[in-house]
């Protein structure tokens, strides 16, 4: 008789092994997919930028901060008071005077008679100093002494809230609760949590434009090249003899496998005002210009061409393979049934390509949605933002722009929209393709 096998142990052993083998995949998914998405979502809810940094900040009275305090919080008086320069004879100033070489007598007299006094202007302080017995001789000495007592918290960074309020109190300014809050909001230099990115996104006219650009970019490239031209290529090569067809396909694969930077450089060279197009067109009486960036229409034509030539190859390969998998007898049959080439394409090839076409459309719409590298290299979204698509806008906002103020938070919010659209589309597409396998009818035997 057989002894019972310790199935449980074997099972759990193999399960652990399975989990171990899966671990790298888990790490990969978490590290390279989930974490970026989560971080994007987190950043999207902040106002992080180059100015705020991504670590904590300090408290600092700045000119722009005071303007904000006056204008948005209605605290004109407080803003003026904070921005004002004062002259205060304090310990620091007295010590500095002794170091600077003021006589011991003067130092002790300052300490005795003026310590703790505050003056609204330099002239008042100097007038007070002149009344001292041991006053410095000469205007220069007086000026350099009074300068030591100039006090202002403008542009001074305070690490904590406490230090900041102490300093404010030191200026003799009393704050109520709303003033404190307003002051914190206008002087804090670090990032804060906010939902403003999204309200800003939906209110900016720029967003609308970027959105429309994205639609133009995705649909034009998708329809004209990634599926349309790919279909034409695969059908034309199907009717060509094998060798030329192979060469033809290889040629159309070149843009895909050439380095993007070089590839776009070639296009730029083609379009430059001293480039290939100009060389040909100028003698014909056209004005020399940058054909790519001359106007938005041109820019779009170039963008669609640049991306389309790269994107057509994948569809071409998929469609070619699908056409090749159509039994040759179907072509023979349609021929003897009287179908000409065009009717063959319409009634035999295209119906068989329905799913490949759908697949390419779905897949490429996703990849176009997130790809901006060729646009970045070619027009950088120009001229004047005419070809700025959503992904590029997110990149320029958050990671790279001329102005130098990188708005991580707003950029992340833009990117998050892209992520959400992508996920929703992916799920929809997955359903669509799953649906297909469900509806495939089982064969009925006689």
């Amino acid at each position: 008789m057989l002894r019972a096998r310790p199935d449980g142990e074997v099972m759990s052993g193999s399960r652990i092994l399975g989990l171990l083998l899966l671990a790298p995949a888990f790490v990969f998914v978490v590290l390279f997919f989930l974490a970026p998405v989560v971080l994007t979502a987190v950043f999207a809810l902040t106002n992080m930028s180059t100015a705020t940094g991504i670590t904590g900040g300090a408290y600092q009275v700045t000119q722009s901060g005071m303007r904000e305090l006056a204008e948005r919080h209605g605290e004109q008086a407080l803003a003026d008071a904070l921005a004002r320069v004062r002259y205060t004879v304090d310990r620091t100033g007295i010590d500095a005077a002794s170091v600077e070489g003021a006589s011991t007598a003067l130092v002790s007299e300052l300490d005795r008679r003026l310590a703790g006094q505050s003056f609204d202007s330099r002239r008042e302080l100097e007038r007070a100093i002149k009344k001292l017995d041991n006053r410095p001789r000469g205007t220069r000495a007086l000026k350099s002494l009074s300068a030591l007592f100039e006090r202002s918290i403008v542009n001074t960074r305070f690490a904590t809230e406490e230090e900041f309020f102490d300093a404010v109190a030191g200026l003799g300014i009393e704050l109520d609760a709303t003033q404190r809050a307003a002051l914190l909001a206008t002087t804090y230099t670090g990032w804060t949590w906010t939902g403003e990115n999204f309200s800003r996104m939906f209110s900016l006219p720029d967003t609308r434009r970027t959105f429309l650009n994205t639609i133009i970019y995705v649909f034009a490239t998708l329809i004209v090249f990634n599926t349309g031209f790919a279909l034409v290529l695969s059908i034309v090569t199907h009717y060509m003899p094998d060798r030329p067809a192979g060469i033809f396909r290889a040629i159309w694969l070149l843009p895909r496998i050439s380095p993007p930077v070089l590839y776009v450089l070639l296009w730029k060279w083609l379009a430059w005002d001293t480039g290939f197009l100009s060389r040909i067109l100028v003698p014909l009486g056209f004005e020399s210009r940058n054909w790519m960036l001359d106007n938005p229409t041109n820019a779009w034509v170039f963008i669609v061409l640049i991306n389309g030539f790269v994107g057509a190859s994948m569809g071409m390969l998929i469609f070619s393979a699908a056409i090749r998998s159509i039994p040759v007898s179907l072509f023979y049959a349609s021929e003897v049934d009287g179908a000409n080439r065009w009717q063959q394409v319409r009634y035999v090839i295209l119906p068989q390509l329905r799913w490949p076409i759908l697949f390419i459309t779905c897949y490429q719409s996703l990849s176009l949605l997130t790809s901006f590298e060729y646009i970045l290299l070619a027009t950088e979204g120009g001229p004047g933002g005419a070809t700025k698509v959503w992904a590029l806008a997110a990149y320029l906002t958050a990671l790279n722009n001329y102005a130098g103020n990188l708005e991580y938070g707003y950029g992340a919010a833009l990117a998050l929209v892209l992520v959400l659209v992508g996920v929703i589309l992916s799920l929809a597409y997955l359903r669509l393709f799953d649906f297909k396998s469900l509806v495939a009818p089982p064969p009925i035997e006689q």
Partner: protein
Amino acid sequence: MRILLDQFTKSFGRLTVINKMDLEINDGEMIALLGPSGCGKSTTLFAICGIHRVSGGRILFGGKDVSNIPSQQRNVGVVFQSYALYPHLTVAENIGFPLMIRKESKAEIARKVDEIAELVHIGNLLERRPAQLSGGQQQRVALARALVRKPDVLLLDEPLANLDAKLRLEMRSEIRRIQLETGITAVLVTHDQVEAMSMCDRIAIMNEGRIVQIAEPMEMYKNPVSDFVAGFLGNPPIAFVDGVVTDGQFVTASGAMAVSLPFNDGARERKIRLGIRPEFFGPGGAQPVAGKITFVEAQGRETLYDVALEDGQILRSIQTATNTATVGEKVNWGIDVENILLFDEDGVRL
């Protein structure tokens, strides 16, 4: 319609598959192109329907030379070995496809499709798709599609090869019935001699790109022009025995078999090949030869025997199942020499 192949030649690059073939197919006739795999049957068929262009010679439909007319404009119906049904179309759409291409009216198409579907007995399947049909049903659809526009000639490329044995039997008679009912000229390509013999008016037997013999099935069976034809027709196949004949006396090289033949080429010794069909060798035969049974196959009504002569050559016999001989048994069965086929050493019938 009468079809004529006149010096038809077909090459693929440097490989000449068919060389100067002549073939006449009479109006309303069903002819079989029979031959081993790779002998050029499909090539001939594809040339007739215009899928392959001829490399030389002419093909005539009626009196008209169609050699340079594309297949779209030749009025032919073809049933392919794989049926080649359009998978995305329903049965009705498949059958109506040639009419749709010709832009006939919907009503007209529907009427013709119904009519032909009745003929091939698939009237109840019109809304299905090919993937939902059995092999035999697909076969009928392919046939209907080939016939629907009343072609000048119906071409069938191994139409039964993909069917199981029972369906093959059924479709054999079905195709013949439909051909006779429509009176269409038909060419059946097959490597199965049973199909050729049972379905066709005449058989053109091919070997290595040429036609070896054209004849009615029984005539070809009884009077093959060569040992190749004799060997190709008949199941179980004919047995060949090589030897020499002198003064009408035949003997094999080993002397294991010696019979006197109704054939006298004089005293000169001559190499010869005997073809002995299984039905002409058995206990009732006139001239006995000694041998041992090496194989018995009971087929129900009949039983098949392989008998090894002393030198190992095999003769085959088919007998009604009343005989009870078993493997290993020594027998002394006779050959019906009147029905023996004689060939010279090159295989040509004497």
